[in-house]
């Protein structure tokens, strides 16, 4: 009798629990319904770097649309985008960052190191964390509130030269390397790395006069025949270009026109399908460094990303910048997820100075081995190093396709701030 009562009671309890489950779930969902977390995104979708900015913008927005639509947002909260086109105009950036702060964004991102450089003073002053897809050592050496999604332009140079010395250099003595650099932080990153490590690596950098002065070009350059003629006269073994795709393509074409017999390599700001489109056959055989996998590689996140790209922005198919944009948003949402696991939603959603501190301390600084669905190297925060991903791949353009020719290469931490010439 007693057992029978217990069984009946248990069944009744079970029925009650099962019956109330939909209401409990509904209550949980209703709690989060309409609640959002804001992320600030700024891309150079117009202006001289638009060929990079547009695929980056599309990748970032598509990744957030995917997470909101298919994964129910981050921890049940929808992600709201506050997007601003900066037109690659440095004078615009500080007001865009002010706008992000006013709108209640928990953090912001820029695509380019130049735009982050223009706004980092405010971001550091207010403790408003920024994530730059493409970065240069000046953004976070010494580390403050600006983070690099990927290894920086200095890491590109070091990784490629390591590869070149190990796998390609067959001459005697030291190889001679000429650097053609964009006249902003994109170019400066490679110059700084070359200056810091040339002696240790055993390479001779062909400076344009004084040490530390590379051959420079502007983003809207229309001919580099003059500078390349001077470089050719110095008989280099390697021509390393640290720039955006359009000027990189111009330099490659001009170098081919001059009949330069050198190994040409590009940093990751220039190595995209836009380079192949712009330089055509002249791009064949160009090496480069890029911190994401190739388009179509067999990694977990590739199919979903390609599906969204095909549906929303088919013109970006094959473009590495789309992958970078997509992964940048995935990382920002992972930061929000980590922060939400360690802090209260209301505190984070307020988008004020406390929320910025939570995002940084409970989100960014607690990132450990986030795999970004295999699309680029793992993402972790390590003390005294604001580069969240530290791995790059070496690529070569063959038959119009940018193919990876190495496995992931880890870029070491370089404490540039300890060098007396850094920032001078």
């Amino acid at each position, binding site marked *: 009798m007693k057992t029978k009562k217990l069984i009946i009671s248990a069944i009744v309890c079970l029925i009650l629990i099962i019956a109330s489950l939909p209401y409990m779930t509904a209550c949980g969902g209703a709690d989060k319904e309409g609640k959002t977390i804001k992320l600030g995104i700024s891309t150079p*979708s*117009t202006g001289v770097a*638009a060929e990079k900015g*547009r695929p980056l*913008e*599309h990748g970032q927005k598509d990744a957030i649309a995917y997470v909101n639509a298919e994964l129910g947002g981050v921890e049940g909260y929808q992600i709201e985008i506050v*997007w*601003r*086109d900066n*037109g690659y105009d*440095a*004078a*615009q950036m*500080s*007001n*865009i960052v*002010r*706008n992000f*702060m*006013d*709108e209640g964004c928990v953090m912001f991102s820029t695509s380019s190191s*130049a735009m982050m*450089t*223009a*706004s*980092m*003073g*405010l971001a*550091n*002053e207010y403790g408003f964390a920024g994530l730059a897809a493409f970065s*240069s050592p*000046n953004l976070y050496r010494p580390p403050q509130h600006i983070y690099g999604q990927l290894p920086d332009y200095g890491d590109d140079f070091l990784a490629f030269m390591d590869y070149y010395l190990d796998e390609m250099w067959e001459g005697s003595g030291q190889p001679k390397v000429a650097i053609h650099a964009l*006249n*902003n*932080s994109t*170019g*400066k990153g490679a110059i700084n790395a070359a200056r810091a490590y040339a002696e240790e690596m055993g390479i001779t950098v062909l400076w344009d006069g004084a040490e530390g*002065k590379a051959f420079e070009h502007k983003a809207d350059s229309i001919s580099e025949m003059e500078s390349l003629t001077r470089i050719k006269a110095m008989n280099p073994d390697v021509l390393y270009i640290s720039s955006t795709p359009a000027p990189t393509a111009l330099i490659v074409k001009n170098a081919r026109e001059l009949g330069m017999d050198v190994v040409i390599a590009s940093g990751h700001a220039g190595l995209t399908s836009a380079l192949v489109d712009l330089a055509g056959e002249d791009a064949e055989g160009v090496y480069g460094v890029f911190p994401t996998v190739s388009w179509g590689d067999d990694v977990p996140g590739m199919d979903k990303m390609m599906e969204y790209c095909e549906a*929303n*922005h088919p*013109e970006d198919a094959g473009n590495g910048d789309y992958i970078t944009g997509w992964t940048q948003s995935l990382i920002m949402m992972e930061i929000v997820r980590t922060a939400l696991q360690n802090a209260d939603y209301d505190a984070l959603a307020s988008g004020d100075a406390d929320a910025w501190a939570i995002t940084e301390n409970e989100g960014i600084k607690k990132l450990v081995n986030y795999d970004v669905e295999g699309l680029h190297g793992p993402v972790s925060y390590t003390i005294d190093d604001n580069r969240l991903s530290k791995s790059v791949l070496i690529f070569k353009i063959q038959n119009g396709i940018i193919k990876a020719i190495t496995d992931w290469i880890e870029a070491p931490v370089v404490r540039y701030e300890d060098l007396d010439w850094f*920032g*001078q």
Partner: protein
Amino acid sequence: MSLPCGIRNLTYAQDMAIVRTKTQWGMLLGLLVVVFTAPLYLSNYWLGVFNLIGITIIAATGLNILTGYCGQLSIGHAGFIAVGAYTSAILTTRFEMPFLVGLICAGLMAGVIGIIFGLPSIRVKGFYLAITTIAAQFIIMWIINQWGWTGGQLGMTVPFASIGGYVFKSGMSQFYLIIGITVLCIFIAKNLVRTRVGRAFIAIRDNDLAAEVMGVNLTYYKLMAFFIGCFFAGIAGSLFAHWNITLTPEQFSFKNSILYVGIIIIGGLGKSVGPILGVLLINLLKEVLTINVVPFLEDKLTMFPSGFASGVTPMLFGLVIVLFLILEPRGIAHRWNLIKASYRLWPFSY
């Protein structure tokens, strides 16, 4: 200046006064109340927008003195602003001088550099002078890019402005500092063109040969116009440096120099209110397009190819400027004068 019907100037002081009628006083006070209470109802972002507008007005006022009043075409104004910005930044960071010293030195340094690049104006004018000022832009920016003290291409971080221990860090405090200096600069510029110097500038602009015959020393006054115009640019540069707190050479591009010329043409060349109206139109148009129009178009115009909204912004910006120049080639200041004239005659417009 014309006055409403029935009002006469009875003394010299009345004749020279800038603000003369009760209506003008009322409007001025109303404007000052609106401006100085703006931080109470504007967000931090919009305060930032108006801070940048104030800084741009100072720089454009300098260019208006040089080009609008004295007729010396300068297409290197962003370079002179950069001189002021970096002078102030270097003095306050590397030499730890107070902000006010940096501000004044920024104006003086930009003024001196302006005189150096203004020297060709003694022999050439018009398009030829424009070419020499373009050279100024490129030479100045090259030096800034190469010189270690400026941080080169990576730029430099600058402290917020501070006076007597008070740091102008919040948007509101920066607004009062910048708008205060802007009002002062406009007042100085307005009065300058009513003095002997200003009349000499106008005489040179209208006919330099005739001016010389009248006894105007062309060399002296042309170089003075360069000094004053670039002094204002230097002050604007200093304020920009301590407001933005990050300086990079890319913030002072050749494109910006051309935009400054566009601003004073659209606002009204040789009118003290011209730079104010020109800057308000250009900056607000740019902000509204960037912040409101493009995101709206991105959301709503889904039938168009991706990137359409981004691409339409520069087109809209250019279209508005072109339409404006076609419909009101004498600048907004002329339209403003027509409105004032119509008010003076109202309600008997004959």
